[in-house]
């Protein structure tokens, strides 16, 4: 199992993501944004940061990078993809995930440890086989543009089809996201995006290792693919 972690100019969480991938017992390497092929890579992380300065809209320019074109093909073929924070924004801009991420309702940058509720659904991947277990994860969030938004009918559809992957615990929504949604998955289930940072919660030194569970779930999806 080998992870590929994308690296754009302006990425800043790719090293922690690489470390988190390796903490799952797998190999991992960085994938520079100009790379056009993902040969030998079994799962992809689109990491956090400020790709291309986040000019125009967060993630708007990164989606046109050669590496993202490769990720789109990889995702279409069923390959597991995890987008974290800016990576989530990039995946939404690229149309690999539904919805969009807007300025926090507070207009403040939110930086705090919070609780995420895993959400099950009919389409369980990457949590297939664990449907009876609903866990609460302690993971940090740090973003200024994390307010998840989609039209109501789209949100209804996401909930009905099990595409809501994570919600903020009651009272902990840091950005005004619709229906407390912190993360969503694609219709096929192999693409997962969330605003909080599981890669910053893989070592007891920083207070929680719950982030590993997110990586392990995506890795498990990759092992099945």
């Amino acid at each position: 199992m080998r992870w590929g972690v994308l690296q754009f100019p302006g990425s800043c969480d790719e090293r922690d993501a690489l470390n988190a991938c390796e903490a799952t017992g797998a190999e991992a390497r960085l994938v520079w944004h100009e790379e056009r092929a993902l040969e030998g890579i079994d799962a992809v992380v689109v990491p956090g940061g400020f790709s291309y300065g986040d000019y125009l809209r967060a993630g708007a320019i990164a989606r046109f990078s050669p590496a993202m074109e490769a990720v789109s093909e990889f995702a279409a073929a069923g390959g597991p993809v995890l987008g974290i924070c800016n990576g989530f924004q990039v995946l939404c801009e690229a149309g690999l995930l539904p919805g969009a991420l807007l300025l926090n309702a507070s207009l403040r940058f939110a930086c705090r440890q919070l609780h995420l509720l895993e959400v099950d659904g009919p389409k369980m991947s990457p949590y297939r086989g664990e449907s009876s277990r609903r866990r609460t994860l302690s993971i940090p969030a740090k973003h200024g543009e994390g307010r998840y938004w989609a039209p109501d009918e789209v949100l209804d559809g996401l909930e009905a089809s099990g595409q809501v992957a994570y919600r903020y615990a009651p009272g902990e929504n840091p950005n005004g996201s619709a229906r407390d949604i912190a993360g969503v998955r694609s219709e096929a289930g192999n693409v997962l995006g969330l605003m909080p940072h599981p890669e910053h919660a893989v070592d007891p030194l920083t207070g929680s290792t719950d982030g590993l569970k997110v990586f392990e779930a995506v890795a498990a999806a990759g092992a099945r693919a």
Partner: protein
Amino acid sequence: MAAVRARVLIRPKEGILDPQGKAVERALPALGFEGIGQVHVGRMVELEAEDPARLEELCEKLLANPLIEDYEIERL
């Protein structure tokens, strides 16, 4: 072919919370500006296009996110 100058105005779609507009609106009374409402903050992009027929596509794909934003193209 001479390039055409254009201005693209991008604004948040109606009905989507616009905290920037709200913050500006709330600040106005303190400065003595009463009776101003419905403030919305968007973006403006000026450009020159050799093929203005493609401007709409450009807006749909990059300058605006049609899910959350409306845009207007104004030729100068």
